């Protein structure tokens, strides 16, 4: 198994690692049993623009790289645009992932959506989209 240079770049120099105090939206997906947990923090301004996005991830190289790439892809965009982020877009931005690691990109997409849902709940907006939750514990 071999990772692309882009994946290794985002793994060794992950962008936006950390926490945001008083974040407007926080999303946690995955579970330790499966070996991946992603936690996404969003700072959103009055116009619905994601002004900051940070993450913490427990997981493999692909889990860390997809988290990092996902934060890059949503930062500076509106929450509506962030909701359109697909795992496929994350994979493409990373110049591909080994087939067994594609689930990590799905997790990254879910983490962003879960954080947005948390934001919607906070501002009293109905959550009108679905989140797959592929890694939920039974």
């Amino acid at each position, binding site marked *: 198994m071999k*990772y692309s240079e882009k994946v*290794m770049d985002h*793994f*060794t120099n*992950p962008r936006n*690692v950390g*926490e945001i105090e008083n974040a407007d939206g926080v999303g*946690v997906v995955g579970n*330790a*049993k*499966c*070996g*991946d*947990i*992603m*936690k996404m923090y969003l700072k959103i301004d009055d116009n619905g623009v994601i002004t900051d996005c940070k993450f*913490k*991830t*427990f*997981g*493999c*190289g*692909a*889990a*860390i790289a997809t988290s990092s790439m996902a934060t890059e892809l949503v930062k500076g965009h509106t929450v509506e645009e962030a909701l359109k982020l697909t795992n496929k877009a994350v994979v493409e931005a990373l110049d591909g992932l080994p087939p*067994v690691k594609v*689930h990590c990109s799905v997790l990254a997409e879910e983490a962003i959506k879960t954080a947005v849902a948390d934001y919607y709940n906070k501002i009293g907006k109905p959550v009108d989209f679905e989140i797959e939750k592929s890694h939920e514990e039974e």
Partner: protein
Amino acid sequence: MKRFVYADNAATTPVSREVIEAMTPIFETSWGNPSSLHEKGREAKDILDDARERIAKVFNCDSSEIYFTSCGTESDNWAIRGAAMRMKAKGKTHIVTSAIEHHAVLHTCKALEKEGFTVDYVGVDADGIVNLDELRSLVTEKTALVTVMYANNEVGTIEPIEEIVEIAHAKGALMFTDAVQAVGNVDIDLSKLKVDMLSLSGHKIHAPKGIGMLYIRKGVVINNLIEGGGQERRKRAGTENLPYIVGLCRALEIAKENLPELDEVAKKRDRLIEGLTKIPYSKLNGHRTLRLAGNANVGFEFIEGESLLLWLDIAGICASTGSACSTASLEPSHVLIAMGVPHEKAHGSLRLTISRETTDEDIDYIIENVTSVVEKLRNMSPLWEDVVKREQTV
């Protein structure tokens, strides 16, 4: 400065200079087929016989008890399937193995289950030692074969093979041990150890990949796995891989000569274990003393093994993990799970397998790098964040 430290000797070993030197004349000069009647064939046959005799001396057994195969996996498949099929004719269709076997054994047993055999998997304790009382209760007069590894490839635990042999034989079952990891690490005297079959692999002891061996005790008959020409006394067909057989022979002799040096390897291993378990929230996997001289397997909580390996690889350290993320299965190590290690902790395991070549500086370099990588990964782990917050409130 970046070093290169190979600490994955349980995966494979480099072929030693002496082994290459032993094999070279076979490629260059004695390339005949041992089955040929002519001069070139006879020359090859003499070399084959000599290698078999010398290996018999290493194990204190008879040369007629040694069969060459293509690898450890073939030896395991042959021993288990061959014995199972032979004993089936006697009405025995029950097999007992352990939960921590190599997949070459486990998957062969699984395949036999589909073919009508009943297989029981004896459990292990937290150190990876087979539960002998449970084994005693599982082995009955219906048991065809007991197959338990000599030493575990992941956690390095050495099993009480002599006692397991007694339990198997008390009920008339055959006893096979996969000794792929043990050979070269443990002095095996087959005049004393009463196993019926024992498998080994060349590439774990500085011989090439593609050569294995199965010992079958005189008087024990098992069915063939590979049919064809009459090689290996009609038990294992296929033209003998003479250069590799000679390489295996030399590697086994050297491994035996080097057994006294294992104390030095074990000292380095202990220093490695000591250094790694100083890291908070870490734990040694496997038995503290009944373990292979070169094996250190340590679990680190709140991080995942593949990330750890990738960083170590960047630092020039070759290691291995029991994390699911390093395989296609998404299931963490069956060995750690059988030992009762929770899934989330099994994901953070690191296996380092050192050799005589590993230096004290290498050990320091590994400890230093693992310590800093674990810290780096924990700092970006949401699980660690919770631990830090918990500790702050205490």
